[in-house]
């Protein structure tokens, strides 16, 4: 079979899985639904590997194929095919998405066991993977938008998965609305592309673009900025990021899958995919890079003070995606994609570990109440440490190589881009501190009540849990954890998933070590043969110097975290008291939610209220009731004739005929 046939199968299996589970939810036993869900994604991964083998047999320059099943629309110069575009970049994304998703499905198989919505969960999850693969494999902008919107919907459905929990449904709506803002940007970008280039097809667009646009022409800049709106909404970059922390209301596997490993990287993929356009609009690319930098710093500072375990990791995700955005915006495409891959490993892993601990805490996510899980949950704490080391870029772990590669590239471009190096390393320092803040506070110290219970009895009995945000009692009919609460760590599929990811987090970086091997870059480079930046390559010596600095900063950060949270446990509190204003500023997330509320939400509400009170009442209602009154008045006159008296009808008839007769008599004479 050809590589594209395998790629179609990659799309087919998750869709089939989703439909099977959705339609058979009454008939399928619970375990079988989980098995179908997991196996279908596993098969998609296998097909992805088969496509990889197919592409490996070809010449590196010829490894791009377009294939279409049928014409979606073919009218008046519009030629949209239901087609996919398979090249090194899309296949790379397919492998990352399906690979990590398979493991997360495996984890969910155990984690969601006591949830009443098990079938629904796997159906949504498979649908999400299908949408993401559609987004990645799409061969034109129309299909990209379809996948893009599907992903947004899947995210909405999964965030508000526990639909009787008010905070969850609100978070789902917020994510959906902000994603739609991004969709609008993407759609407008596609319109502009069609107006200028007359096609939606990737191949045609990227071929024609350099001939049609001159560098930094306003149209291509506008297209790129609109694409960035879409990318930033999906990838949670400033200022469209506020949905991501709220999305932590969903079940933890969802946070792991969508909001760490796959969906949020869609924006990074989009920028990399349209690199031809960004090469023509360096201004837009620079704007994107600076927003990425701002996001990575802002998110890192917020993660320093977050007390909610999952939200802290969510801000860390934003921060790491900031690195990726910087990477693909300054031209370090393969480095950005490499960081995307390693981040998928260690962030999925961190979320899984957090999920296990949160389950043990009966949905309590506040790290102030957690401590001492290192002894209580050995396996979880070891894997969490692996993920944390990779995130903090500890020497020789995966994050160490991928993050520094982006910064080394920025250094090689020199000039203005040195800002990225300096602030990027500062961000790395913050990353190490906040990562190990979480690890020390959750795993170290005197065991809390739940952890002690685990150590003493090996299991936990919980009463009905309460929503920490609102205090309302959870509805366990639709939500984990139900009354038969079990310790998530004990389940074998979850351990397998976490072990595989821990391996990837620790050793995934070894496939691309400067001067030794270069797997990812060698694979991806034929895609990014843009004429502008192809010559920029950091030398191997600089690479290693960068790595040495990065390693030192990471160790320094870990030491600082240790000093703050283990050696001097009251130091954080003293710091908090000393810099009260700063702490409040960070703790309230730089007041982004409040700012958006004042700048967007309230004006929109005011306009809505004005429309309702004035426009609706006087203009719309006036028009409607005016028309109604006119018709009613006129019909009242006509209706009086229909009085029901037969004899008056007869009189009218006779009078009418008499009148007619009189008229003809008079007019004829």
């Amino acid at each position, binding site marked *: 079979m050809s590589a594209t046939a395998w790629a179609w199968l990659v799309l087919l299996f998750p869709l089939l899985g989703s439909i099977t589970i959705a339609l058979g939810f009454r008939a399928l036993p619970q375990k079988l639904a989980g098995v179908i869900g997991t196996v279908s994604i596993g098969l998609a991964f296998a097909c992805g590997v088969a496509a990889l083998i197919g592409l490996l047999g070809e010449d590196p320059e010829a490894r791009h194929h377009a294939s279409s099943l049928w014409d979606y629309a073919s009218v008046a110069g519009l030629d949209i095919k239901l087609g996919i575009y398979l090249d090194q970049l899309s296949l790379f994304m397919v492998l990352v998405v399906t690979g990590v998703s398979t493991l997360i499905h495996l984890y969910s198989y155990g984690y969601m066991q006591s949830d009443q919505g098990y079938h629904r969960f796997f159906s949504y999850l498979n649908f999400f993977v299908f949408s993401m693969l559609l987004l990645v494999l799409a061969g034109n902008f129309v299909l990209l938008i379809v996948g893009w919107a599907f992903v947004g919907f899947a995210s909405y459905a999964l965030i508000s998965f526990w639909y009787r929990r008010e905070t969850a449904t609100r978070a789902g709506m917020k994510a959906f609305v902000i994603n739609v803002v991004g969709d609008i940007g993407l759609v407008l970008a596609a319109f502009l592309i069609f107006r200028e280039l007359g096609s939606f097809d990737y191949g045609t667009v990227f071929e024609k673009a350099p001939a049609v646009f001159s560098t930094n022409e306003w149209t291509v800049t506008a297209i790129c900025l609109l694409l960035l709106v879409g990318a930033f909404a999906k990838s949670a970059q400033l200022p469209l990021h506020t949905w991501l922390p709220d999305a932590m209301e969903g079940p933890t596997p969802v946070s792991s899958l969508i909001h760490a490993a796959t969906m949020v990287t869609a924006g990074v993929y989009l920028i990399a995919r349209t690199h031809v356009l960004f090469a023509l609009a360096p201004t837009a690319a620079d704007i994107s890079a600076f927003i990425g930098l701002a996001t990575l710093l802002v998110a890192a500072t917020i993660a320093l003070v977050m007390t909610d375990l999952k939200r802290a990791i969510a801000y860390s995700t934003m921060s790491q995606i900031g690195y990726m955005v910087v990477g693909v915006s300054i031209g370090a495409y393969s480095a950005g994609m490499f960081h995307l891959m390693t981040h998928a490993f260690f962030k999925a892993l961190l979320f899984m570990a957090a999920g296990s601990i949160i389950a043990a805490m009966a949905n309590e996510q506040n790290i102030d109440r957690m401590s001492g899980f290192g002894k209580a949950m050995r396996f979880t704490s070891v894997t969490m440490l692996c993920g944390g080391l990779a995130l903090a870029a500890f020497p020789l772990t995966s994050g160490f190589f991928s993050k520094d590669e982006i910064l080394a590239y920025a250094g090689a471009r020199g000039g203005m881009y040195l800002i990225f190096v300096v602030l990027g390393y500062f961000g790395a320092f913050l990353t190490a501190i906040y990562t190990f803040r979480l690890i020390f506070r959750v795993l170290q110290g005197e065991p809390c009540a739940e952890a002690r219970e685990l150590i003493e009895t090996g299991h936990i009995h919980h009463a009905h849990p309460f929503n920490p945000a609102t205090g309302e009692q959870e509805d366990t009919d639709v939500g984990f954890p139900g009354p038969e609460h079990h310790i998530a760590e004990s389940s074998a599929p979850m351990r397998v998933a976490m072990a595989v990811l821990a391996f990837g987090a620790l050793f995934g970086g070894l496939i691309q070590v400067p001067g030794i091997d270069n797997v990812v870059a060698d694979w991806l480079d034929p895609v990014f043969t843009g004429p502008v930046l192809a010559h920029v390559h950091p030398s191997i010596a600089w690479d290693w110097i960068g790595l040495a600095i990065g390693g030192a900063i990471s160790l320094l950060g870990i030491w600082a975290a240790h000093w703050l949270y283990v050696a001097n446990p009251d130091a954080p509190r003293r710091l908090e008291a000393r810099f009260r204003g700063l702490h409040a500023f960070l703790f309230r997330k730089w007041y982004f939610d409040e700012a958006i509320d004042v700048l967007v939400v309230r004006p929109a509400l005011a306009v809505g209220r004005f429309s309702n009170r004035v426009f609706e009442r006087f203009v719309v209602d006036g028009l409607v009731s005016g028309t109604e009154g006119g018709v009613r008045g006129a019909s009242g006159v006509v209706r009086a004739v229909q009085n029901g*008296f037969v004899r008056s009808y007869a009189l009218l008839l006779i009078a009418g005929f008499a009148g007619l007769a009189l008229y003809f008599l008079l007019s004829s004479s």
Partner: protein
Amino acid sequence: MNTDWFVVLSALLFSTGAFGILLRRSPMVILLCLELMLNAGNLALVAFSRMVGNGQGQVFAVIVMVVAACEVVVGLGLIVAIFRRRLPLNVDDLRELRG
């Protein structure tokens, strides 16, 4: 005999029927008055036919009689139905179709 007299008689009969319909309230009488009007028409048709000297008017008269017979069947059927439902046999009381 002059055709005028027939036409005058016809007009008188027609007017009688028309006023009967307008003034009487019993559906039975109204039906009779309708018949009167139709047959006034018939008389005029036959008279004109004789005046012109061909049979066309008489053919029309026969057709009008057929129509009149049909109309009586429907009309009497209605009246019987009204009677059997114990509704008042008074067209002024039967005014449900008022708009």
